[in-house]
C-alpha cells in the first residue's frame, strides 16, 4: 500500500484546475486510485488556489498535507507549499517564478525550453506536467495522449501542436536522477470513474428520477445545477435557475405536487431563504428533496470554503413542527445512492428530505468503481386508486403510518387540494381544535416510522475504545487516521452517521454503548452531531474536535488532534 501526493498551486486564472484535471484523469486511466481536493478563493483572477492530487494502488478516501511533488505556477506557491514538501520531493516551477526562493528540491524550467510557439503563461501548466510525468517515469507519450484526449477538440490545431512539442522538449531536459520509478503500480482490476462529490450526487439524482431541479447559484452547490443542466436534455431533467432561493424551493414543491420528482439546492444562505417553504412541504406533505452544500457561515461567511455547521439549523428550520429527514453522504458512493434514496424517502413519507454535503466533499474528486445502478430501487409511495368520477381526494386521510395516498393533479380524476394552513382531510382550511391535533399528530408520527427505518451509525475499528463520531466530508480523513492510530496500538473506532435525522435512538445507543469514550469530530465549533445525539437520544459525548478555519481535515490534522487525547497506546 503506497501513494503519492502532488500539489498544483497558483493564482486563479493560471490553470491550476485544468492541469489538475488532466493529471487526475491520466492517473485514473493508468489504473491508479485517485483522490483530489480543491482549495480556491472567491475570485476569478489572482490570489492563491491549489489542488492536492493523491494517487496510489488502493482506494484513497482523504487528502494529506505531506506532498511528494509541488507544481508551483508562481513564486507565492513555492513559498506556501515548500514546507509541506517531502525532503525527497521535487518542486517544479518556471525559472521566472522561482524568484528569491532557494531550495535544493526546486527544479526550475526556463521558458525557452520547447518551441517558440509554446512560450509564456499559457504553457506553464503543460510544461510543469511534462516535468512531473517524466519524473514519475510515465514518459511524455502518456501526457501527450492525455492532452490530446482532454483538449484535442477544444484547442486550435496549431496550439495543440505547440503543446505536444513542448511536452516532448521538456521531458528531454529532466535529469536522470530526478526520475524515480513509482514505488507502486496501478490496479487495473476494474474500470473506475473520476467523480467529484457533487458529480456523485447529481448522478444519483438522475438515477433516482429527478425531473425538476431549481436553484440559484451559490458555491459550493452550483455545480449540481450545472451538471443537471448538462445532463438535462439527454435524460429528461428540467433545470431552472430561479430569481432567488425562495422561488427555487417553492418551484420544486409545485413540480412535486404535479407529480415530478423534484429537488432544490443551495448553500446555507439559500437554506435560510428556503426555510419557510420547508414548512410548506411539511404541512402540504409534498415530497421534495433539498440539497445543502455547506460552507462556513454565518451570512456570506467564506464563499469557497468548507464547514459542517448547518446541521442543527436544518433539523429545526422553519416555524412549527413537522417531520423531515436528513441524510449526509460519507463518501462518493454514498452520494450516489443516498441522493437516489432521498427521493424514495420523500415520496414514501411525503416529507422534505435534506441531503447535506459541504465544499470539501462537493469538490473532491475521487476514483470510484462504476455505481451499481441495480442497487437503486424506486418507491413512489402510496397512490390513491383512480376514482370513477371526478371528486376531491381525501389527501390528508388520517392513517396508521401518517402517510395518506396521493394522486397527481390533472393526470387523474382526483381533485387534489393541498393547503398551507392547518386543514381537514380534504385539504380545506380549518382551525378546529380536534382536527388540528389529529392532523398534527398524523404528520409528527411519521418521525417514528422514519426513524425505525433508519440504520444506526456504521462502526469501523474498535467499538469499545475511544469512538470518533463523524459525518460527511470528515469521515474520509478520520478513517485513514484510524488506520494509522490503530497501527500504533490505540484502541480506536469510528462511528459514521449517514442518516442524521430522525435519530433512531435505540440503534444509536446500541452502537455507541460499548465505547468507553465518545468524541465528535466535525467541521464546526459547537459539535453539532453531539448536540443532536444528546438532544434526541440522551447520549453524552466526552469531547469535540472542531475545525472552523474553512479547510477540510487532512489525515495529519486528524492524527494530530486525536492522538493527544488517547494518552499512551491504550
Amino acid at each position: 500500500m503506497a501513494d503519492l501526493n502532488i500539489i498544483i498551486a497558483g493564482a486563479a486564472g493560471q490553470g491550476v484546475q485544468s492541469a489538475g484535471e488532466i493529471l487526475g484523469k491520466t492517473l485514473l486511466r493508468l489504473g491508479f486510485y485517485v483522490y483530489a481536493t480543491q482549495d480556491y478563493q472567491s475570485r476569478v483572477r489572482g490570489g492563491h488556489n491549489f489542488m492536492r492530487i493523491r494517487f496510489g494502488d488502493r482506494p484513497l478516501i482523504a487528502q494529506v498535507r505531506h506532498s511528494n511533488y509541488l507544481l508551483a505556477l508562481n513564486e507565492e506557491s513555492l513559498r506556501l507549499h515548500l514546507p509541506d514538501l517531502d525532503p525527497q520531493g521535487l518542486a517544479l516551477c518556471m525559472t521566472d517564478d522561482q524568484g528569491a526562493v532557494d531550495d535544493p528540491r526546486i527544479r526550475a524550467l526556463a521558458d525557452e525550453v520547447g518551441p517558440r510557439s509554446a512560450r509564456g503563461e499559457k504553457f506553464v501548466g503543460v510544461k510543469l506536467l511534462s516535468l512531473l510525468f517524466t519524473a514519475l517515469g510515465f514518459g511524455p507519450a502518456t501526457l501527450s495522449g492525455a492532452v490530446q484526449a482532454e483538449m484535442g477538440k477544444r484547442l486550435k490545431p496549431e496550439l495543440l501542436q505547440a503543446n505536444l512539442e513542448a511536452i516532448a522538449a521538456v521531458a528531454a531536459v529532466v535529469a536522470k536522477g530526478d526520475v524515480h520509478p513509482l514505488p507502486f503500480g496501478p490496479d487495473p482490476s476494474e474500470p473506475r470513474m473520476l467523480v467529484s462529490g457533487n458529480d456523485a450526487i447529481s448522478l444519483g439524482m438522475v438515477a433516482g428520477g429527478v425531473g425538476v431541479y431549481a436553484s440559484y447559484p451559490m458555491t459550493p452547490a452550483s455545480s449540481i445545477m450545472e451538471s443537471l443542466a448538462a445532463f438535462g436534455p439527454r435524460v429528461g431533467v428540467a433545470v431552472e435557475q430561479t430569481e432567488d432561493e425562495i422561488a427555487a424551493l417553492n418551484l420544486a414543491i409545485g413540480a412535486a405536487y404535479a407529480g415530478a420528482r423534484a429537488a432544490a439546492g443551495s448553500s446555507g444562505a439559500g437554506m435560510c431563504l428556503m426555510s419557510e417553504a420547508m414548512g410548506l412541504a411539511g404541512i402540504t406533505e409534498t415530497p421534495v428533496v433539498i440539497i445543502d452544500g455547506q460552507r462556513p457561515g454565518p451570512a456570506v461567511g467564506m464563499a469557497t470554503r468548507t464547514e459542517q455547521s448547518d446541521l442543527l439549523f436544518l433539523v429545526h428550520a422553519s416555524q412549527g413542527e413537522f417531520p423531515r429527514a436528513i441524510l449526509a453522504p460519507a463518501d462518493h458512493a454514498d452520494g450516489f445512492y443516498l441522493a437516489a434514496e432521498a427521493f424514495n424517502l420523500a415520496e414514501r413519507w411525503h416529507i422534505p428530505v435534506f441531503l447535506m454535503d459541504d465544499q470539501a466533499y462537493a469538490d473532491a474528486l475521487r476514483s470510484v468503481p462504476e455505481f451499481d445502478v441495480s442497487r437503486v430501487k424506486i418507491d413512489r409511495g402510496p397512490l390513491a386508486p383512480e376514482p370513477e368520477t371526478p371528486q376531491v381526494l381525501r389527501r390528508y386521510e388520517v392513517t396508521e403510518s401518517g402517510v395518506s395516498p396521493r394522486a397527481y393533479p390533472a393526470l387523474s380524476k382526483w381533485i387534489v387540494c393541498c393547503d398551507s394552513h392547518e386543514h381537514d382531510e380534504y385539504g380545506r382550511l380549518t382551525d378546529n381544535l380536534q382536527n388540528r391535533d389529529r392532523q398534527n399528530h398524523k404528520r409528527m408520527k411519521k418521525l417514528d416510522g422514519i426513524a425505525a427505518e433508519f440504520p444506526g451509525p456504521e462502526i469501523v475499528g474498535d467499538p469499545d475504545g475511544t469512538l470518533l463520531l463523524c459525518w460527511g466530508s470528515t469521515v474520509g480523513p478520520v478513517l485513514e487516521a484510524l488506520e494509522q492510530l490503530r497501527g500504533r496500538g490505540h484502541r480506536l473506532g469510528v462511528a459514521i452517521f449517514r442518516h442524521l435525522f430522525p435519530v433512531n435512538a435505540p440503534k444509536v445507543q446500541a452502537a455507541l454503548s460499548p465505547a468507553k469514550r465518545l468524541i465528535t469530530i466535525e467541521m464546526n465549533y459547537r459539535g453539532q452531531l453531539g448536540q443532536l445525539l444528546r438532544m434526541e437520544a440522551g447520549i453524552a459525548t466526552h469531547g469535540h474536535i472542531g475545525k472552523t478555519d474553512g479547510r477540510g481535515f487532512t489525515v495529519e490534522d486528524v492524527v494530530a488532534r486525536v492522538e493527544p487525547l488517547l494518552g499512551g497506546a491504550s
Partner: protein
Amino acid sequence: MSCLDDFAQYPPEWCPGCGNFDLLDCLKQALCDLGLQPHEIINVIGIGQASKLGFSLKCNMFDGLHGRALPVVLGIKMANPAVKVIATSGDGCFYAEGGNHFIHNLRRNLDVAILASDNRVYGLTKGQASPTSASDFKTKVHIEGVGALPLNPAALALVSGATFVARTFTGAKAEATELIKKALLHRGAAVIDIMSPCVSFNKVNTFAWFRQRAKPIGPDHDVTDLHAALKLAFHDDEHIPTGVLYQTRRPVFGDHLTVMQGESIVQRTLRFTPDRVRPLFKDFY
C-alpha cells in the same frame, strides 16, 4: 347539475359586499364558458382574503405561502406544461411579498392566468396599506399616510414582459368574465389587475369609487402597442381605463427547452428507471 355547481365548493367566508364574491362568480362563469372541468385545471393561491377564493372553487388547488404562488405555478408547468393553471391572490401577495416572482415570471412568459384581486389594502390582516394603496391612504400603521407612490400593477406587468395585461373591476362582471376567459385562452403570462372593493378596511376605494372611475378602453386602442398600453396604465386617478391594455405573442417558458417538448416530465416520471443514468457514466472515465 349546472356547470357552475360543478365548480362550487365550500361557501365563501368574506364580509357581505366584498368584491371577491363577484370575482368568484366571474371566474366560475369563465371556466364554464370555456368548457373546462374541475379536475383538469389547477388553481394556485397565495395567502390573503382574495386567495381564499380557492376554497370556494372546486378544482385542483395548491394553497401556497403568502407571496409565493407563482414559483409554485412555474414548478407545476415545468412538470406538466399542458395543464391550465390559474394563480389567484391579492395585491399584497402578488406585489409586496411576491413582487420579485411577479416580475421574473413575466420575463419568463410563464403560461398562467394571474388573477390579482386588488383592493388596495391588506384585507386578511385587517387593514394595513398594500403596495397599491394611495399615497395619502391612512392606516393604523401609516397614521400619517403611506407616503410612497402606489405601485402600478399594469405598468409593472408591461415592462416586465407580460404578454397579456388587462384591468377590470369586480363591479363590471361581464367585462371581468370576458377578460378572465381571454386570460385563460392566452398562451403566456396573462395578468389581470382586478379592482375589488374591501368593504371593511378600505373606505376610500369603495365600490362607488371604482364604479365612477372605471371606464372601458375605447376601440381605437392598439393592444399590440406597448407604449400606448403604458400610457393607459398610467391613468390619472379620476379615470381608470379597463379592458385589455396589451396583448402580444412570445415563446412561453419552456418552448426553447428540449426537455420540455413532447411527453411531460410527470408522465415520463411515471415510468422512468434508474437505468437512465447509465449513458452519463461514460463522461467520467
